[in-house]
């Protein structure tokens, strides 16, 4: 019987014989597989890095409001809190018997479009991201003075700040803010290592620093003449009246739900307490429609290109009548001919898969230079995980299925075809 090496040689040479149309088919399938792999990869990478933006924080508490909104402004620094939480409430939370540590957050100012976060030393000690990784300084350290600022990695990188440089914060979060706190410049005392999370995109000052720059401000407007000289600001006198939110670490994880309930039913002030992990996955699910639409579109693109493959093979049957007849006369049975068409479809698909794997490496490398510049996050090269391999499996099965059409056509014509040369 026919040797496998001979069988595959025939299939390969037959394809090379029709280079142009075969190459176009390979490219068309390659593009759609790359789209499919790319969408899947970005989806999983995004989900992965998304779920790792915060870890080790048991509860986030803010003024009463939407849970997702609270997560968005406290962790992602997107949007604004509708209300603040009073300093007294913060004290109560901090002194709760089950609370191990707290990170107060005071938001509302910015610098060149990057958010300024008023917080405490605890932020650098307790905040974790990824797989319980803590924050580290690439240079300098935590703020010691009222007008000290610590920069996230991306802020330092893109604005080119070095230690000891001075910068001025702006009131509000718009990039074009004209109300500058220019009477009180801050000094860079530390720069954090990159984390690939929103931590990189903010500036950190002490709560006292936030208070200091707002002395003499009312309703977001600087009152002329009311600015207070720095020398008169004793550190103790700068206790905030309110903060935006607080991240909480508990002594015992067992108490999480109980503490959450306590603060959700807090009498003195309406509060909302969320479990970051739970709310993160809720937030991810709200993006499910987008995610599914992308996947659907890439699937449709793939189906279109597989149908294109089928059409190309079917069209080639016409010019191959003689060839098929020769095969039949030398003793090829219709199964061989059917198998040959299938093998050709398979070779085209496998070449397309290989090509798109190579393209993925290229695209990720290229994408990372851009992503790295703007978001200080990068995509991994691990796009061939189980899910993607499963998808590639479906692609191969799909190719085999659609080439049943040309395969059967060749099979049938070779059954009845009498050579009449």
């Amino acid at each position: 019987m026919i040797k496998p090496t001979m069988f595959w040689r025939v299939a390969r040479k037959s394809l090379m014989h029709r280079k142009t149309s075969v190459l176009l088919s390979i490219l068309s399938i390659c593009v759609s597989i790359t789209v499919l792999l790319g969408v899947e990869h970005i989806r999983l990478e995004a989900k992965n890095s998304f779920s790792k933006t915060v870890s080790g924080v048991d509860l986030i508490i803010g003024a009463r409001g939407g849970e997702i909104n609270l997560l968005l402004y406290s962790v992602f620094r997107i949007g604004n809190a509708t209300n603040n939480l009073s300093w007294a409430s913060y004290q109560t939370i901090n002194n709760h018997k089950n609370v191990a540590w707290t990170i107060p957050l005071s938001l509302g100012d910015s610098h060149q479009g990057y958010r300024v976060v008023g917080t405490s030393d605890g932020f650098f000690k307790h905040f974790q991201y990824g797989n319980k990784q803590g924050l580290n300084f690439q240079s300098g350290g935590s703020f010691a003075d009222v007008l000290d600022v610590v920069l996230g990695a991306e802020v330092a990188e893109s604005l080119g700040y070095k230690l000891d440089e001075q910068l001025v914060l702006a009131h509000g979060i718009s990039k074009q803010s004209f109300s500058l706190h220019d009477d009180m410049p801050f000094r860079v005392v530390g720069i954090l290592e990159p984390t690939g999370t929103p931590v990189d995109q903010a500036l950190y000052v002490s709560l006292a620093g936030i208070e200091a720059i707002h002395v003499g401000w009312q309703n977001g407007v600087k009152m002329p003449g009311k600015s207070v000289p720095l020398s008169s600001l004793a550190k103790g006198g700068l206790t905030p009246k309110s903060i935006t939110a607080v991240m909480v670490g508990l002594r015992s994880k067992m108490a999480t739900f109980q503490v959450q309930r306590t603060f959700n039913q807090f009498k003195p002030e309406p509060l909302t307490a969320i479990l970051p992990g739970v709310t993160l996955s809720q937030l991810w699910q709200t993006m499910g429609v987008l995610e599914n639409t992308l996947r659907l579109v890439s699937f449709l693109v793939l189906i279109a290109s597989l149908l294109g493959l089928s059409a190309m093979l079917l069209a080639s049957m016409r010019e191959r009548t003689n060839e098929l007849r020769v095969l039949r006369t030398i003793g090829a049975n219709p199964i061989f001919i059917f198998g040959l068409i299938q093998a050709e479809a398979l070779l085209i698909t496998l070449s397309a898969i290989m090509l798109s794997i190579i393209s993925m490496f290229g695209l990720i490398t290229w994408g990372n230079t851009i992503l790295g510049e703007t978001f200080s996050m990068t995509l991994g090269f691990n796009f061939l995980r189980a899910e993607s391999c499963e998808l590639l499996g479906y692609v191969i099965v799909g190719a085999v299925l659609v080439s049943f059409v040309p395969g059967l056509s060749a099979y049938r014509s070779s059954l009845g075809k009498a050579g009449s040369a």
Partner: protein
Amino acid sequence: MTEISDQPALLLKNVRYSYQPEHAPVIDIPLWEVPTGTSIFLRGASGTGKSTLLNLLSGMLVTNEGNLSIAGIELSQLSARQRDRFRAQHIGVVFQQFNLIPYLSVMDNVLLAAQFGSRGSNDIRAKAEALFSQVNIHKDLYGQQAQSLSIGQQQRVAIVRALLNSPDILLVDEPTSALDEANRDAFMSLLLKIVKEEKASLVLVSHDTTLSRYFETTIELSAINCPHSSPQEQAAREGRL
């Protein structure tokens, strides 16, 4: 093999074939026998069913009725698969043109046919080279794509391919119509010489009367094929047999 070589190369009895059942048969052969080892020229005008007959003989088409045996094997008794296998092993076919797979090399064309005939590859390559040198196909051409050869060269490669599996019978359909006078002459002499050496039987069909000078036996297709005989004649014939 010895057992079947006693049989006639071809034996047809009451073979009838029509492309559409409602149409009159194209082929209706009451009796035709070709003894083993003979070379026969079957002449017929265009459209009289020569190619159809060759396709029946090679098992590419299946008779509607009657008995058709090749080297003692009744083709209608074989399954489609067995027929394909039988064709690969026992029958060599050469057409007017388009005998080769255009994108395969000369050698691959020949070896592919050998593999369908289940012949071992070591001695088959040697045999192919021997046959190639007999038909003046130079070594340099072995690796070339079949489509790059001239029509005459392709026809000669087709003979090698058809004879490589040592078929009992070689069926040749208008092999020379694409060749010029000189090439035709060379081709015919070569074909008959090589068929004799290989001890195969040969049936060559053509409309071209001049080919008869290469053969001892020439048969008019109309003499054995009577597709337009009336039902009465057929009944009489069947009663006689």
